[in-house]
């Protein structure tokens, strides 16, 4: 029987050597050393040989099995190495072809600027307040110290829904609502849509504005200038200086208009700033004590400041958008630029 076994080993050796895939090796494995293999059938014949020879026979059988199993493993290793090398040789691509990207959407440039404004003011301790677009005359005019005969109340300036109900012309209405509901200290901004009855190349009947209101003991004109100055520099860059010009608003006293150095020419004078080197940015001032009195806030104890800036205008300056109408045309080729 020993010769038979060594013959099996010989054929196994040859066949393993010839095998060229892992699959073939698996077949060989079950043929030679698996449950129904040749070697196993010898094992079953063990009872037919004399007792004293059985251990030697068993050893030979095991030895052979181990040898075959090692041959199989070695061959498998070699086949895998070969496959790996083939993979390296054959797998290659035109790596200059375009990569796969998700189609990207975009936020409206007004939203981008809006969020940036909110974030700058939130970082300075402001909260964001909201109010309705459809307002009454009290919140839009009376409480803001605008007398009944003021020209701003005219139909040619303001959209009316009813005798007393209108589309807010400024988000200062939110200041009034906040002061009615909350005690000082108050430190808010209120971004939102506003409406004025005018429509031309530089005016949209709906536009976006952000108003700020700070009321506390000891709030000063310096605080107002500081906050605006920091905001403008964060928004437009360190180089952009600002200045205040005396002006009139019914609800602030003293009132000012804010100019910033032209973001295009940095003050040299260009077509954007019409040669002046400065751009008008918005209005500001210390809250008129009358406003506090109307709203029941102690005007002897508290002072405050307020200012308003145009979000759309900031977006146009920031992104160098030449025409206001583009903001509301919603051309995807425009929207995807930001």
């Amino acid at each position, binding site marked *: 029987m020993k010769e038979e076994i060594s013959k099996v080993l010989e054929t196994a050796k040859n066949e393993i050597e010839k095998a060229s895939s892992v699959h073939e090796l698996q077949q060989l494995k079950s043929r030679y050393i698996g449950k129904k293999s040749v070697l196993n059938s010898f094992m079953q014949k063990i009872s037919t040989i004399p007792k004293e020879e059985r251990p030697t026979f068993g050893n030979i059988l095991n030895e052979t099995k181990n040898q075959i199993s090692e041959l199989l493993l070695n061959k498998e290793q070699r086949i895998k190495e070969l496959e790996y090398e083939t993979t390296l040789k054959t797998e290659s691509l035109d790596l200059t*072809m*375009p990569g*796969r990207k*998700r*189609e*990207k*959407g*975009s*936020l*409206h440039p*007004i*939203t981008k600027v809006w*969020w940036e404004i909110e974030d700058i003011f939130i970082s300075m301790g402001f*909260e*964001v*307040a909201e109010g*309705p*677009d*459809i*307002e*009454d005359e009290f919140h839009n005019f009376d409480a803001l110290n605008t007398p009944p005969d003021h020209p701003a109340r005219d*139909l040619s300036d303001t*959209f*009316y*829904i*009813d005798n007393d*109900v209108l*589309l807010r012309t400024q988000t200062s209405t939110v200041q009034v609502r*906040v002061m009615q509901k*909350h005690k000082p*200290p*108050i*430190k*808010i901004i209120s971004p939102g*849509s506003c*409406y004025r*009855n005018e*429509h031309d190349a530089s005016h*949209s*009947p*709906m536009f976006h504005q952000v108003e700020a209101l700070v009321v506390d003991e000891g709030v000063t004109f310096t605080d107002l200038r500081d906050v605006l100055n920091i905001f403008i520099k964060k928004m437009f860059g360190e180089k952009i200086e600002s200045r205040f010009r005396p002006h009139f608003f019914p609800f602030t006293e003293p009132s000012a208009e804010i100019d910033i150095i032209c973001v295009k020419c940095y003050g040299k004078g260009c077509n954007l700033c019409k040669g002046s080197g400065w751009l008008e940015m918005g209005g500001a001032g210390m809250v008129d004590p009358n406003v506090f009195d109307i709203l029941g806030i102690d005007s002897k104890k508290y002072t405050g400041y307020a200012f308003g800036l145009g979000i759309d205008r900031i977006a146009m300056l920031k992104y160098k958008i030449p025409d206001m109408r583009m*903001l*509301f*045309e*919603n*051309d*995807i*080729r425009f*929207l*995807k630029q930001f």
Partner: protein
Amino acid sequence: MNVSYKWLKKYVDFDLSPEELQVKITFAGIEVEAIEKLGEELNQVKVAKIIDKKKHPGSDHLSICHVDDGDVVKQVICGAPNCAVGQKIAFTPVGSRLGEFKIKKVKLRGEESYGMICSEKELGISDKHEGIMVLPDDAPIGQNLGSYLNLDDTSFELEITPNRPDLLGVYGVARDISAILNLPLKTPEVIIKECDEKIENNLILQNDAPDLCPRYTARMIKGITIKESPAWLKQCLISIGLRPINNVVDITNFVMMEFGHPLHAFDYNKIDGKKIIVRRAEKDEKFPALDEETYQLNENDLVIADAEKPIALAGIIGGENSHITEETSDIVIEAANFLYSSIRKTAGKLKITTDSSYRFERNIADETADLVSRRACQLILELAGGTLLKGKLDSYPNPTGKRLVSLRPSRVKSLLTINISNEKIKEYLKLLGLSFKGEEKDNLTFEMPSFRKDLEREIDLIEEIMRLHGYNNVKTFLKPQNIMDKKIFSAHRMVKNILVSYGFSEVINWNFGDPADLDKFEISEDDERRNNARLKNPLGTSFSIMRSMLIPDLFKNTLFNINHGQKNIKIFEQAKVYTRKNEKLATEKLHLSALMTGFLNPVYWGDNQRQINFFDLKGVVEEILDNLGLKNYDFKKSGEPFYQPGLATDVIYKKQIVGSLGKVDPKVTIKYDLEQPIFVIDIKLDDIFHLHKMETPVFKVIPKFPFILRDLSFIISKQHNYDDIISTIKGVNPGNIKKVVLFDEFTDKNIKKEFRSLTFSLVFSSDTKTLTDDYINNILQNVIKKLDSKYSIEMR
């Protein structure tokens, strides 16, 4: 560091419970890390009297005693040679627990023992274990041992910050307590009587390393008697966790723990050449220390040596060759200061930490050396006898000068935002040991005490004032305004960001609307969207209302873009819609509307182009609702008039319609000259925020056991919908079927009409075990049975 309640009370007469004291000092900057009641264990032990004693018949060294604890007489077997009839002893009855050791009734060689007569070591009082603890004759029988020995106390474990080495002694902590409570500090009176014999004639001091040893003092006492310390001294040491040893060693430990400045006592007769030399160690010099180790030193280590050998590793540990023993009669008291960084280096290198090294490493003051030296001498003379030689040896080449620090009261006030008087400032600082030196306009000058090296600048003094004033007594003014809802604020942005990530571009339209759009969208006359806020003076009829829907404007934007060559469009708008009926002003609600049309993805060489379908839309809606944290929302057939029937659903949340999505009816799109299929979403964001409180996600345990996937594929009648099928599958074993994912649907000519093939992937897992194949197969069979009985399916 540990301090005890009773010890602290020696210096400040406060009227606070230990718990109250703990709060006071913690909030003055000395954090109490743990508080321990002492003596509780010893109160199980009784003072008792041995009333008779006879030899144990079965043993040579055991005796059978009877003890009377005032209550009962108990038989106790005792092995100590020193026990005798008539002694007052510490008796621990059965049932008590000393440390880990529980006292039980035992039988010793046939005789029963009902308790234990204890040694001091067994009681944890000292290391004495040669015999039982014998109490004085006047000890009252029956009293608890803890209270008899006055060991009832509270120990505080303090965290001393590295800037305050002055708090590394009980007296230092008491000084802060006196300042906190504004109570007088009782300083121990130190008076010493010297004899005529001069120390110079007995001992020479030579400081060869003044850079590492800024000060070294030595005093000498002759003719002392080493013995046990008196009870008060032992109590003090035990209360802070030290074991009493003998009077001289106990005194040096006591004084170190009192003033936080370590000292050391040498046996004078072991000092060769009668000379103390402070010097750097020689390379590889060996030093045999008290801890029975021998350390190998080098030139960076500082030693105290005599003429022949090192006798101490400076500031860290004494030498085995010179320490106090029972036979010692003449001693040298060292009180010195060493450069903290050098002590730290040597102790770190040799891995030795002692109470002494711990203190020297923290840069203590040179000046205290003389105080602790005199204090130790006073106590030794008192408790060990002997005579103190005249004078001291003192190497102090560069005495620390006076340190003055000025403070502006205006600065204190502005920083503290309190009104504090100059007198109050002076009072606080005086309590901490600073002396007031003068006042000019808005300027107070103080001299710093030597033990407060940490006080160097005005701001250091302000910190002290604040600490005593109480940080939490400083007023606060600001509160959040609570005007904005931060969660909703963030949610608005999140929704926009999700849409952008899905490829949508945001549009902004005027909020004016055209009433004709409502007709084109077939909005019925009684629909609330017909309750419009109308402008009295509009720009024109097409802008004559405030819009009550956003979708018509998205149609106009789409047409504009198609006319400009863009066929694949994904846009959204998030804006208010307005209605007005009986309200004074109007109802304004935030909506999100989105529109998709054309191909799903831009042209890509690796893909086939595919038209947008309903499920692309639905995925976006689900993504938004999931991200808002909504659970249990539902999709039901929509009744909106502008959708193509059968291709639109409403979104239901808490029984309310909070939105809709679907394919717009071609007969509507054609009115806007749009010819390609248009899909839209409309979500009532404000309604959702009204119904749904947004919550912060809370961590859920990640499953420990592996999950197993199985696929299930069958043919089923089209009349059964997915929602129904999936809940049937899950319902079979909700505990182990964690997820069911649909991954294929198809129909072909081999499948009967009105039927479809569905393939689901089931995820199995358990929270408590690894599932076996058999177990899962069993569940799977149940799923198939259930599906078959409910829908008559045909397995594939």
